C-alpha cells in the first residue's frame, strides 16, 4: 500500500456498494497476511487514509473519479468499471484486477407477503426464473455481470479475467456480522476515523 496513491471509494456508512469494497479489501488483506486480523485492519485503515473524498454513493464516487479527476484509483464493482471504460474509452483508464476479491452478489428475491398483497406472485416468480434462463444470463453477461450458468460463463469467459473469489459467508460469517463488526457505530470503520 503506497501512501501517495489516493483512492476513491464511497462511504461504507451510507453506501451499500462501499461496504462490498471495504470487505473486499479486508478479505484481500487477510489472504495476504495469512488471516491476521490486525494486519487486515492496518491495511484497510491505510487504504481509507488515502481516500480524499467519501461520496455518499457508488455512482457519486465514479463521478468524482472520472469527471472530476480526483484520486488515482477507484474501487468499484467489476461491472461498474467496465461500464465506465465503455463510456469514456479504453485509453482513459486501466482496470486493475486484484488476485483475490469478494464475490458481490446482488440479492434478488420475492417478498412473499408484499407480492401476495399486490397479487403479483406469479409475475414476480416468473421474473425471478427468467433471470436464470440462458437468455437472462446472457443479458447479465453483456452488462458485465458474471453469469452463474455454466454455458453463459463459458461463452463470456474471455470477457472476465481470472480471479479468486471469496464469499461474505466464508470470511465474515454473513452480512449481519459484517455490518455489526465493521459498519455499526463504534465498529471497525469508525475506529479508522477516530481522531
Amino acid at each position, binding site marked *: 500500500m503506497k501512501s501517495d496513491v489516493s483512492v476513491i471509494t464511497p462511504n461504507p456508512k451510507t453506501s451499500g456498494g462501499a461496504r462490498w469494497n471495504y470487505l473486499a479489501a479486508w478479505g484481500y488483506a487477510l489472504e495476504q497476511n495469512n488471516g491476521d486480523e490486525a494486519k487486515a485492519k492496518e491495511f484497510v485503515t491505510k487504504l481509507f487514509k488515502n481516500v480524499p473524498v467519501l461520496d*455518499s454513493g457508488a455512482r*457519486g464516487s465514479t463521478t468524482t473519479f472520472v469527471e472530476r479527476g*480526483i484520486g488515482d484509483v477507484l474501487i468499484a464493482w467489476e461491472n461498474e468499471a467496465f461500464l465506465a471504460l465503455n463510456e469514456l474509452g479504453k485509453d482513459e483508464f486501466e482496470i486493475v484486477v486484484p488476485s483475490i476479491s469478494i464475490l458481490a452478489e446482488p440479492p434478488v428475491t420475492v417478498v412473499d407477503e408484499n407480492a401476495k398483497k399486490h397479487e403479483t406472485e406469479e409475475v414476480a416468480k416468473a421474473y425471478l426464473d427468467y433471470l436464470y434462463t440462458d437468455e437472462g444470463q446472457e443479458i447479465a453477461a453483456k452488462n458485465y455481470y458474471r453469469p452463474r450458468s455454466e454455458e453463459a460463463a463459458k461463452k463470456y469467459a474471455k470477457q472476465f479475467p481470472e480471479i479468486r473469489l471469496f464469499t461474505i459467508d466464508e470470511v465474515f460469517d454473513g452480512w449481519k456480522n459484517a455490518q455489526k463488526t465493521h459498519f455499526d*457505530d463504534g465498529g471497525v470503520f469508525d475506529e479508522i476515523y477516530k481522531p
Partner: protein
Amino acid sequence: MADKRKRHRVLPGFGLSMGYTLIYLSLIILIPIAVLFLKASTISLAEFWDTVTEARVVASYKLTIYTSFIAAFVNAIFGTLIAWVLVRYDFYGKRIIDALVDLPFALPTAVAGIALTTIYAPNGWIGQYFESIGIKVAYTPLGIMIALTFIGLPFVVRSVQPVLQDLDQQYEEAAATLGANPLQIFAKIIFPAIFPATLTGFALAFARALGEYGSVVFISGNMPMKTEIVPLLIITKLEQFNYAGAAAIAVVMLVFSFVLLFLINFWQWKTTKKYQVS
C-alpha cells in the same frame, strides 16, 4: 376588567382563522417534531449523551455551524448589495436578474450540488484556477460554504428588497443636505433602516444552511472529522437503522436552531421596537 369592551374588527373570523392556524401548524410542524423527540427519547440519557457528544458528531456540529454562519454572513452582505442594485437602479435585463435570484429556491439542491462541484472541482472551470494558486474549493469546508451560500442567497435578497423599496429617498436627501457624505449616509441612515431586514435574511439563510443536505454532500467530500456535515451524519445513522441515534442528533440541531432563531428575532424586535410607530 370592567371596561374591557369587545373589539370590533373589519374582517371577522379570528376564532376560525386561529383554529386553522393551530391545526395547520400542528400537522405540518408540531407533530413531526414531537415524534422526533419521542424517537430520541427511546434511548437512555447516557446513550443520548454519548451519541450527541461523540467526537465525530461534535466535529460535524462545528463544521455545520461555522460554514453555515459564514455562508449566511456572506449572503447578508452580497444579498443586500443585490437587493440594493435591483431596487435603486434601472438597467437592461433587470427582470432577468431579479428572476435569477429565486433560482436557488426552485432548483433541486442535488442539481445545484453537482453543478457547483463540476465548476469548483480541481479540474473544473473555476476550480482549476484556485487549484493553481493552491486553494482547494470542492471537497473542503470552502466548497461547503459555496453550496450553502448558493442556497441561502434568495433569503437575504427577498428580505431586504421590500424594505429598500419602502425606504423613502427623502431620508438620504435630508442627510445629504445636512452635510453627510455618501459613506455616512449609508452607515447612519440606510444601514440602520435595512439592518432588521438583513438580520431576518441572515437568520433564514443560516437556518436553511444548517439543515441543507442535498447540495452539500456532492461538494463536501464527506470526510469524517473534516468535511462531514450534521445532516450527513443523520443520514448515516438512518442507513444503519439507528433511528434513535439519528433523532438524537436531529434534536440537538433542532434545539440549537430554535434558540438561535429565537435570539435573532428577539434582538431584531428590540432594535426596531423603540422607533417603530408606538
